């Protein structure tokens, strides 16, 4: 529901005095009663259009607002809310001053438009009018009166905290896993390195959890193109920001973040990554759980974009006990899909049964997978098939699909070419796709939405990630564990262990 709020007043001071305070986008901390503190991100001045201020409100929450226009000639400011604890959507507001020429007074209007949920519209309209605007009028009056009173000491300036100064921008000692040449897990060894200060658009992170993804194994083997040895593997990590580059917006030292990066280098205590790759973590999601970000959003991407899965449909997940598999089965179950999955042992079957998989199927050598699938689906076949074994077993997959069924080939282990006969697909309108995750997340908003969904599901225990943690020094063992297919759930390196 769209809401317009207009509040205006007359301030008993000349316009130049009022404007001198209001024109500083960072001044609210000094005079607004509900703003406990204000600071500009990246230490920009308070009249830089595009600048972002971050309020700490007196109730402890945070608010980020961006300056959209600043006009000293017309005495106007426009800004919008970027992040708010309240459901104030598309909130933009204009502050306008006008001189009252027959008295030394100033007309001040504060006008905003925003959308709010219907059931909270009245409450939010009231809050914006009273606690933000009217309280602001009173606050500025008091502030100006205090300023004018000569006996009182001057109001102290907000201390500009230099954020990057915390670590002094120095090189920091760290440990990193280095694969000297392409080869087996044993080519990786831990060595001492130093990590330079972050570039202008980077952040430096002290990592607490590093995801081991299947693509890391490919990098180490030298299969993936474009990586020179020696290399530090790893595309994904979680940790606390140490310091940020000059042009970084919205991230601060001390923030907990998860990131996914096309550039390897995650297997380390400390590393620099592009700020764009970072996603801030909500409370209630542990560092280890957050290290399933790539696997979790892959699961979400498969269900929502690749399959566009509908409740009641059937899905078969190969390697359902693996990193992606066990998250995918829980996510699918939360969408009311009927979940089947293949596992290699009875122990894994028990493991996945607790994680959303209705029908674990233990596959031994040349088993009767197709027969089992047909029995479970009453001969109809399965709607979606997540295929992880490349060319091997693809015939079975296609044979098990229902009419208009869809098989997505992911995590291809051997990168062999896979011949597909269109005639076979055409017989029953089948789809075979080969989604590569990074192609789907160039749209950053989409990634953030998926990440938000994942973290919400982890917070409310709809999804419980299973984590096998190894110390950073045991990257070799971690890779061996995955290559021997013994892992259940996600494998994580933990520098703190």
């Amino acid at each position: 529901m769209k809401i317009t709020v207009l509040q205006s007043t007359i301030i008993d001071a000349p316009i130049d005095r009022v404007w001198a305070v209001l024109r500083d986008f960072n001044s609210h901390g000094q005079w607004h009663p509900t703003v406990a503190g204000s600071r500009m991100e990246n230490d920009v001045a308070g009249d830089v259009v595009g600048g972002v201020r971050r309020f700490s409100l007196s109730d402890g929450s945070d608010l980020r607002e961006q300056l959209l226009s600043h006009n000293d000639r017309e005495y106007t400011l426009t800004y919008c809310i970027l992040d708010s604890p309240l459901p104030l959507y598309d909130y933009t507001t204009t502050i306008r001053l006008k001189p009252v020429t027959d008295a030394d007074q100033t007309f001040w209007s504060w006008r905003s438009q925003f959308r709010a949920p219907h059931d909270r519209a009245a409450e939010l309209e009231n809050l914006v009018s009273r606690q933000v605007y009217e309280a602001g009028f009173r606050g500025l009056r008091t502030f100006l009166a205090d300023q004018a009173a000569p006996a009182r000491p001057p109001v102290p300036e907000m201390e500009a905290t230099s954020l990057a100064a915390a670590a002094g921008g120095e090189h920091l000692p760290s440990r990193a896993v280095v694969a000297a040449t392409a080869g087996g897990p044993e080519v990786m060894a831990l060595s001492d390195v130093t990590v330079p200060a972050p570039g202008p658009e980077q952040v430096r992170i002290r990592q607490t959890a590093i995801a081991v993804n299947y693509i890391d194994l490919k990098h180490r083997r030298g299969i993936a193109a474009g990586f020179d040895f020696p290399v530090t593997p790893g595309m994904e990590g979680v940790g606390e920001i140490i310091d940020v580059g000059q042009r970084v917006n919205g991230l601060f030292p001390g923030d907990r973040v998860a990131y996914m990066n096309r550039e390897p280098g995650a297997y380390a205590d400390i590393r620099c990554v592009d700020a764009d790759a970072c996603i801030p973590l909500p409370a209630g999601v542990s560092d280890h759980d957050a290290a399933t970000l790539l696997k979790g959003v892959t699961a979400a991407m498969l269900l929502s974009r690749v399959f566009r899965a509908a409740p009641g449909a059937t899905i078969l997940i190969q390697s359902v006990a693996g990193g992606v598999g066990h998250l995918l089965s829980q996510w699918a179950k939360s969408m009311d899909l009927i979940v089947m999955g293949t596992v290699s042992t009875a122990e894994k079957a028990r493991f996945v049964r607790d994680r959303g998989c209705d029908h674990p199927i233990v596959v031994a050598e040349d088993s009767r997978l197709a027969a089992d699938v047909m029995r479970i689906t009453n001969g109809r076949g399965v709607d979606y098939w997540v295929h992880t074994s490349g060319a091997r077993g693809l015939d079975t997959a296609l044979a098990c699909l229902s009419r208009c069924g869809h098989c997505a080939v992911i995590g291809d282990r051997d990168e062999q070419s896979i011949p597909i006969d269109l005639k076979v697909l055409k017989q029953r309108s089948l789809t075979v796709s080969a989604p590569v995750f990074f192609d789907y997340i160039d749209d950053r908003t989409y990634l953030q939405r998926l990440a938000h969904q994942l973290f919400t599901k982890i917070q409310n225990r709809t999804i419980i990630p299973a984590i096998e943690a190894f110390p950073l020094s045991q990257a070799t063992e971690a890779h061996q564990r995955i290559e021997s297919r013994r892992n259940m759930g996600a494998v994580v390196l933990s520098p703190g262990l």
Partner: protein
Amino acid sequence: MVKVYQSTVLNAPADRVWRDLRDFNGLANWHPLIVLSRIEKDHPADKVGCVRNFQLKDGARVREKLLSLSDFDYTCTSAILDGPMDLSDHFATLRLFPVTEGNRCFIEWSAEFECPPEKAAALTEAVGEGMIQTGLAALKKRYG
């Protein structure tokens, strides 16, 4: 170009004041310097493009054209077509803004025009103080 700007605070809600000000033919009701006003060709007073023809206290006649009228943001703009003053391209704006705190309104009245440089000071005085400020002072009195 010469610009004149005057403003004040009126002790009545914007809606109440606007009821009086939106009448383009109502100037004589509240402005002390204006004695008689009519709209030419019997047009309604809120028809954009209509011309008001009014007489000043000193007998001079002025013709002004209504250029815009907005009930939405309480704005009226007009231009002088003929008048006794030695100015051209005269263009005036009258606007109200609600002052929600205290249920009052803020009124601004501005004008811009061209004139010979040596007459700028005198005309600024005549328009700014004579016409506009006298009008605002009368409104201020009218609404207490």
